[in-house]
């Protein structure tokens, strides 16, 4: 139970969410940079397939360039969208951490610690 499918799935999702958060922070930091193209991260579909194969940690964390239209200076970062995404990613990370902590707490009880 310590390193079973569910633990590794949670671990993989935390890695993906971390990558997504970094991409959002990078986008927001570059909101005025001329020519900057926003990037986004996708991993959920790959993770779903990886779970079926029993190897969640092999899920692919893909970074994509945004196809949103650019402003006059070539920058296509939409601040409101990035803030919304950042909020949601932070909440998802909290959720997965809580799930992980719950598992550790259960294990500790069973061990008798």
């Amino acid at each position, binding site marked *: 139970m310590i390193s079973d499918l569910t633990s590794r*799935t*949670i671990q993989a999702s935390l890695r993906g969410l971390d990558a997504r958060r970094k991409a959002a922070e990078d986008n927001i930091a570059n909101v005025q940079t001329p020519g900057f193209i926003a990037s986004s991260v996708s991993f959920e579909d790959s993770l779903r397939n990886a779970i079926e194969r029993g190897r969640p940690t092999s899920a692919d964390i893909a970074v994509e360039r945004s196809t949103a239209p650019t402003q006059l200076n070539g920058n296509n970062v939409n601040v409101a969208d990035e803030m919304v995404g950042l909020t949601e990613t932070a909440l998802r990370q909290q959720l997965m951490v809580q799930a992980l902590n719950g598992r550790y707490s259960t294990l500790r009880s069973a061990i008798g610690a």
Partner: protein
Amino acid sequence: MPISPISPIASSITPITRPGGAQDTAATSNSAADFGKSLTGALDDLDAKQKATDELSRAAATGDLQSVEDLMIASTETQLATQLTVAVRNRAVESFNEIMRMQL
């Protein structure tokens, strides 16, 4: 004036019988079996809860979870059920040791 003799007390006192009477011994062994059953039942229930929480955790990881509350409640229930089962097991072991230590 005639004095009526005092009737014997013993006949007017009904003996105290334990509630249940002869069924008592059978009840003790039944409750021992019941306890064993309830402990196994608690373990099965805990296993089911753990599996349900695992499924919800995986759904949350792939973004397919519909309700955050479902996972939080299931996770909490699993932790509490584990603690309860462990506590019951500990008490049972303590009691067993107590009995074994009794001078006969």
